[in-house]
C-alpha cells in the first residue's frame, strides 16, 4: 500500500510532529524541557512519549497487534492519567496523529487518490484510541484501588491487629466527603 510505504519512509517526521503536538499540551515553558532534555532519567516523561510513539507508528502502518499496542501506549497514558488532565485530554493525543498524517501527506493523498488507504489507517487509529481509553481507565482504577488499599491497610489491618486506634477523626473518611 502506498500510504503505508510513505509513512514508513517519513517515520521520523511523523514521530517528531506527533511528539511536538503532544508536548504542546503542556505549558510552553515546560514543553521545551520535555523536548530538549534527552536524559531519560532527568526527563522521564518526554522520553517515555518518544519511545512509545515509535512503536505506535509502526502499529498504525503495519496493522495493530493488540499486545504491542498496549505496551506502547501504556507508558504514555499511564503518565497522562496522573497529570491532572481530563479523560478526553489525557487520550486526545491518539487522535492528533490523524490530523498530522493528513497534513504531512495531503499532496500525496490528493494526487494518488489514497483516501481508501487513509480510511484504513484511520480505523487503526480509532482502534488505538479505544485501547488508550481502556488503559486510561485501568490507570484511574488503579489509582483509586491504591487509595483504597492504603485506607484498608491503615484501618482494617489496625483493627485486625489491635482494634484500638485512638479515635481522633478519621482522615480517611474525608476521602468520600470531599468528592
Amino acid at each position, binding site marked *: 500500500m502506498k500510504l503505508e510505504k510513505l509513512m514508513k519512509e517519513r517515520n521520523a517526521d511523523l514521530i517528531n510532529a506527533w511528539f511536538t503536538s503532544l508536548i504542546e*499540551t503542556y505549558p510552553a515553558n515546560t*514543553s521545551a524541557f520535555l523536548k530538549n532534555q534527552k536524559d531519560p*532519567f*532527568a526527563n*522521564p*516523561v518526554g522520553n517515555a512519549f518518544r519511545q512509545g510513539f515509535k512503536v505506535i507508528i509502526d502499529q498504525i502502518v503495519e496493522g495493530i497487534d493488540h499486545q504491542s499496542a498496549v505496551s506502547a501506549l501504556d507508558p504514555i497514558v499511564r503518565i497522562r492519567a496522573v497529570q491532572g488532565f481530563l479523560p478526553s485530554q489525557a487520550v486526545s493525543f491518539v487522535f492528533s496523529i490523524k490530523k498530522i498524517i493528513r497534513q504531512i501527506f495531503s499532496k500525496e493523498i490528493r494526487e494518488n487518490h489514497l483516501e481508501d488507504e487513509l480510511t484504513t489507517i484511520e480505523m487503526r487509529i480509532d482502534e488505538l484510541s479505544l485501547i488508550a481509553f481502556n488503559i486510561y481507565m485501568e490507570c484511574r482504577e488503579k489509582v483509586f484501588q*491504591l487509595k483504597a488499599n492504603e485506607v484498608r491497610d*491503615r484501618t482494617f489491618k489496625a483493627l485486625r*491487629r489491635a482494634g484500638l486506634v485512638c479515635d481522633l477523626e478519621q*482522615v480517611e473518611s474525608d476521602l468520600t466527603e470531599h468528592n
Partner: protein
Amino acid sequence: MTDDLKPHELIANIQPRPPQTGWMNTPAVIRKGMFCYASNPKSVEILKLPNARGWNPLEEDWKLPKNWKEIVFEGLRQRLDRFRTFKLFMDICVRCGACADKCHFFIGTGDPKNMPVLRAELLRSVYRKDFTAAGKIFGTLAGARELTLDVLKEWWYYFFQCTECRRCSVFCPYGIDTAEITIMAREIFNLLGLNIDWIATPIANCYRTGNHLGIQPHAFKDMIDFFIDDIEEKIGIRVEPNINKKGADILFITPSGDVFADPGTYTAMGYLVLFHYLKEKYGLDVTWSTYASEGGNFGFFTSHETMKRLNAKMYAEAKRLGVKWILGGECGHMWRVIHQYMGTMNGPADFLEEPVSPITGTKFDNAKSTKMVHIAEFTADLIKHGKLDLDPSRNDNLIVTFHDSCNTSRGMGLLEEPRYVIKNVCKNFYEMPSNTIREQTFCCGSGSGLNAGENMDLRMIGGFPRANAVKYVHEKHGVNMLACICAIDRAVLPVSMDYWVPGVNVTGIHEMVANALNLPGQPKRTKNLRGEPLPGMEGDDE
C-alpha cells in the same frame, strides 16, 4: 484542571498551547488529586495552634482571620529575623535556572511553578514588595507583587507540592535550599490555620499518644506481641523485646509507620530479630518506648516549634529510662530532625553517655553530642567486626537496588553504611543510574507529609522520576526489590511501584538483615519474615 470546564473551554484546552501570561498574573488552579485536604480543626486544637477551623481549599472563602495579611507580614518579618537562611535566600537568587529541572514535581507535572526557583519566587515577590527598597520603588520591574488572596492560595497549593527533598539545593551555586523556604511558608500557613490534615492529625496524635498513628501504649504493646507471634511462626524463635524498660543499655526509636503498615512491619520484625540476637549473643539490652514510640516528626512539616515539641520526647524518655544512648531506626525525615535539629533544639543531652557500641567497642564520634546513632551505622559496624553470623543466601531470591532517602542523603550523608549492610546480607545488588541516587537521589514523591490518599495523582506523578530509574534496573538487571531506609518510602514506594513498575517490592534493610541472620538455637529456616518460602525451600512447605 477543575472538573467544571465548559465545552468550549475544553476545546481550548486541547488546542495546543494555552495563552501565555507571566507567572505573576497566572493564579493557581487547585486541581483535584494534586492537593491534600485541609486540617481537621480538632487536630489543630490539640496542639493549641492558631486559627483552628473547618475550611475547604476548593471553596472560594478560606475563612481566613480578618487580619491575615498582617499575620503573614509579621510572620515573615519574624522569620527573616530568626533565620539567616531565609533572609539570604530571599536576596541572593540570580534565577540562573540550574535548579529548574531538578525537581521531581516539575519533571513529572510539567507545571512551571514547580520549578524550585519559581516556587521560591512566589514568596520572594511578596518579600520584595514589602521588605526591600527596590521592590517598593520599582514594583513589578524589580520582581515585586502585592500579597493577595490569590497569591496566598497559590502559595498554599505549591508549597504543599514541595517535599522538602533538597535536590535543588545540591545544584544551586549558592546552596539556596527550597526546603528552607517551604518550611517558612508552611510556618506562615500554620499561623493562619492553613495546614493540611495529613500533617495536622499525625502531629496531634503524636503529641498525645507518642506516635503519628495514635496508637495507645497498650495497643503498641499488642502490636509488638503480634510481631513476636509472627516471628515465631515464621522462623521458629520467640523474641523477647523490652518495652519502657528502665536501665536498659540503649533506647530504640523508630517511626511508628513500621509498626503498623506493610512492608514496614517486616522491617520492625527485623529490628526485633536483630536485638534478640544481640541480647542472646552479647547480652545487649535494648528497649522500645511507648511514650517515644515515634521516630518520625511531622512537626518538621509544620513549624520549628512543633518539631521541637514533638522531638522533646526522645531525650525525655531516654532520661527517664536511664539508658546510655539512643539508637534510631530506618527513617528519612526523622534523621533530618535528629541529625540537624535535635541537639540544638533539645540538647545538650548531658545525661546520656557518648555512644559506644558495647559489642565492638566502636566509639561513634560523629554522634558524641547528640548521642543518637543510626541503626545502619550500628549494624554496619557490627558486620565489619564480624559480630553477626550471616547467611546471605537466604536472600538469594532478591535482586536489590537501593533508594537513598532524600533526608539521609542530602541532610546527613548516610550513603555507604546502608549499602555496606545490603551487600553483606544479599548477593544481588545493582545501583540505579548515578544521577538518581546518593546526593542526587529522587524523592519518592510523597515526602514531607504529602503521603495522603487524596493527592494520589500528585504522588504518582511526583514519584515517577524515581520509579523510572527503578524501572530501568528492573528491566536491565531484573531487580525485584527496592531497599530503602525510610518509613515513608516503605509506605509509599509500594504504591508507586504498583502503578509504575509492577513486580518490584519494597523492603527495609533490616528485614534483609534478619532474614540472613543465623540465630542461636534456630530450627531449620524455611520461611522469610514475609512468610514466603526461602530460596531452595519452595517445595518443602509443610
